[in-house]
């Protein structure tokens, strides 16, 4: 085995030739990727492409049909207790024991984690301004998200896996959650694997992205590389018959009749491609691209 391959195997998350299917429907077919230590990785994809399945596989609530899904060196669905101790999970909807109070939550969780950071938990709770006897079930979604994040960060895990942390949060709490997460992750060189439906938040959070798309291979790489190479162009040619393929990653007709062209190539290359297809590139212009635009462009609107 080569040294490179050995190095990949040591990464916090290693997925190799992962296959999974529900009934007769194949959700993941030979999916492979790995996450480097200390990186914050965002998993993006449209509904139904298998984000939740992948997160469940990583969290160990599903076992692969074939292939491997290893987290901190162990099969994700058969983690040992010491490995579980090094992994912090934030479940969709900020799952918590809502019958416990803030104080009881800490009393329950702290003994499991030798590296429990009392100060981190207390700091979060002080900011929340709720008494220690406040029941989690009586909190708002935003308040609960803070308790959940505080509990996970206080565990001082090496790897955090967050499943759609934005669910149910308004803009303010989303920002708060994100700020705390980024701060603690960066400060502690934590590896973070996160999914979210709010794509624009990812721009501020992640180092790398995994873009899943139906029927195509996923994009895996640093976010800045993706944003630096993936481009959007507008073509004012309502009568043109444009199709994706070749150098054009995706083309979509906008509501005003213009075309949006997405590609990993500069304008002159795209222009030449259009010309070769018999389309006049004179009215082709590059348009600035947000991550959300890039996500839609990469995965397609529909």
């Amino acid at each position, binding site marked *: 085995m080569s040294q490179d391959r050995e190095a990949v195997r040591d990464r916090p998350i290693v997925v190799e030739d992962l*296959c999974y*299917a*529900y*009934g*007769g429907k194949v959700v993941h077919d030979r999916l492979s990727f790995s996450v480097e230590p200390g990186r914050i990785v965002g998993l993006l994809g449209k509904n139904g492409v298998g984000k939740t399945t992948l997160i469940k596989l990583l*969290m*160990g*609530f*599903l*076992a692969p*049909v*074939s292939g491997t899904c290893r987290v901190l060196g162990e099969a994700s*669905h*058969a983690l*040992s*207790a*010491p490995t*579980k*101790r090094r*992994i912090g*999970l934030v*479940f969709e*909807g900020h*799952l*918590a*024991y*809502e*019958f*416990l109070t803030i104080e*009881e939550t800490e*009393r*329950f*969780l702290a*003994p*499991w*984690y030798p590296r429990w950071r009392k100060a981190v938990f207390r700091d979060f709770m002080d900011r929340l301004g709720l008494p220690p006897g406040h029941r989690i079930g009586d909190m708002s979604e935003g308040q609960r998200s803070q308790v959940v994040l505080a509990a996970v960060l206080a565990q001082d895990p090496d790897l955090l896996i967050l499943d759609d942390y934005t669910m149910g949060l308004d803009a303010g709490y989303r920002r708060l959650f994100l700020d705390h997460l980024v701060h603690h992750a960066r400060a502690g060189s934590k590896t973070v694997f996160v999914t979210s439906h709010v794509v624009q938040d990812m721009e501020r959070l992640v180092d790398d992205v995994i873009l899943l798309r139906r029927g195509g291979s996923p994009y895996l790489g640093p976010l800045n590389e993706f944003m630096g190479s993936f481009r959007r162009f507008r073509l004012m040619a309502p009568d043109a018959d444009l199709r994706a393929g070749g150098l054009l990653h995706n083309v979509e007709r906008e509501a005003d009749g213009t075309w949006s062209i997405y590609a990993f190539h500069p304008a002159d290359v795209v222009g030449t491609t259009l010309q070769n297809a018999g389309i006049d590139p004179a009215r082709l212009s590059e348009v600035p691209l947000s991550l959300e635009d890039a996500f839609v462009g990469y995965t397609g609107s529909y």
Partner: protein
Amino acid sequence: MRPLFLKEWIKLRGRLAAIVLGCATFHVYFAMVLRRKFTLEHAEMVFYQVGRIGQNTIADFEYVPLVIGALLAFMQFAPEVARGHLRLSLHLPIATNRLILFHVAAGTAVLAVLFALNAAALAVIVGAWFPVEFVTSALSAAAPWMVAGIAAYFGGVAAMLEPHAIRRVAWLVVTAAVGALCHLSARPGAYHDAISGLVVLALLFVPAVPWVARRFRGGDGTIPGVGRPVAIVLFVTVCALMAPIATSTLFDAQREETQIFFSPVSRTFVFREHLHDHEFRHATREGQELDRRTFQTLLPFIYNRDMEVWGLLPVTIGGRAFDRRALTAERMIFELKPRDLADRRVDIAVHPLLESEPGQARLQFPEDIFRFSADRIEFLNVDTLAVDEETTRIFTDALKELGFAFPPRLVEGRATILKPFDDGYLVVDANGVVFHVKRAQGRPRIVRTPIPADLAIRSIQIVENAQRRFMGLLLTRDGRLFLIGREDYRLLPMPTQGYDPDTMDYRLIMNPVAPTAAWSNSAGARAAALTPDLTPFDFYARAAPERRRGWGELVVRAFIPFEIRLEARGGDRLEWLFAAGPGSAWALSLCLAAIIAAADRRRTSRREYFLEIGLTMAAGVFGLIAARLTGPARPNRRV
């Protein structure tokens, strides 16, 4: 583990308080009902109803443990599953098995405390009105219901943790089946011989629960450990238990046993056998078919009322004319059924000793009851439960004077006032000597009988018949049956060829011309014709007619490899019975397994295929069902 204990305690404390409150309300109600019973009726009559007729004082408690078990499972695990807490818990740094077993252990401990509190409350309430023997009896009646509660808890937990809907239903069916087994009889002591099997069944859920939980976390891949094998045993057992219930519900009609009589009129055996539905056959041993009326006229000592209506009385038999009154007066029936046997009955060892010379037409229950201890016969007042020391001393001294060895092996009598006179009790002492104990004008009248002490008596059936010729029947452990002479306690041997006391009813139909002894069960009947001095002179045996079976039944039964039944074979005590099915069941099941595996080729791994075949070879179609219900439920590529 302390944090888990903290979590479970916080989660359950409010709900447990509600359960405890509910139980307390039930016990207040129960105490009020019992108090009312003693207010409305004399204590001696209540003692008779409970101690002799078998009324269950705690019948209202029957489903309380089941509800507690199911509620506890729901309260403890519904939030874990429905609100996703289980996913949080399963990620705690602890092995899944230990985590789930702790939760189950916590639930079991709570269940044990709740059941102990309920048992204590029952004991206190029953003990306030009844002697300790009744308390023991009540608690023994409650024991299988508590096993049902335990099964409801474990089965409920398994059903809630089960990730697949169909299998969730399967767990509920298994739980319901085990629960139903615990409620087959409300008679105290009925489960005396069967309860250990039920406990084993309930405990089989324990290793299955963490196995289900591990599938909840890690999918359906192969999980090592005993969880799946135990689940397979549980599913196979429940299939075997449900098969006879299903087939009897679908196909079985009630069958009446064949009855054989010796006709004093025609001097031959006649019989009545159930063919099917409402069709019976009446005939003679020689094969002469009889209509029902002719059959009845051949047995005037039994059917004399009809014969009187038909104007056929008086009838002349053996040169002697009998009118209806004479026919009735000369007839005497001694019966010994499996449920009458001392070791198949469920008795509370407290008895009323009636006044045998009451000085009035009707018998009356005394205001005391007696029981034997290690060194005396003890009389208790039924109202105060205090020991009547004077009566106790008098009777104990009388017994000791005659050499009675305490404690007795057997106390046999008919504790009822619905009889023409009272003949007291036949008591077999510690040495096997039989004493006849009566109360006459308040004093002991005790006879040390000449019945041999080495007879190894199994049971005695006292029959206080107006003719006063015989005391009753005596059965020995080696299956010999005797009629007991009333005056001299002389033992008259009865014919018993092929008699199985545990399954057969024995009837001795006495008349002055041709008495008949007959014994029968569902397999067939035998009878012996006796001379008036009870000497057998002719025998007849007849197998029960084969039951006609339809195609549907034949096909279904061809697939059933074996059956397990929990039933009382003509007694109070339930017992486990095992019956092997036809050999075809294994062959047909193997074919079925091969067909299913071939049809489901993409879903069946080679390992699962061989496991299914192996289990089918071991347990027929039940093994196949168990393998399918416990195997991988999602696509599993052929390796």
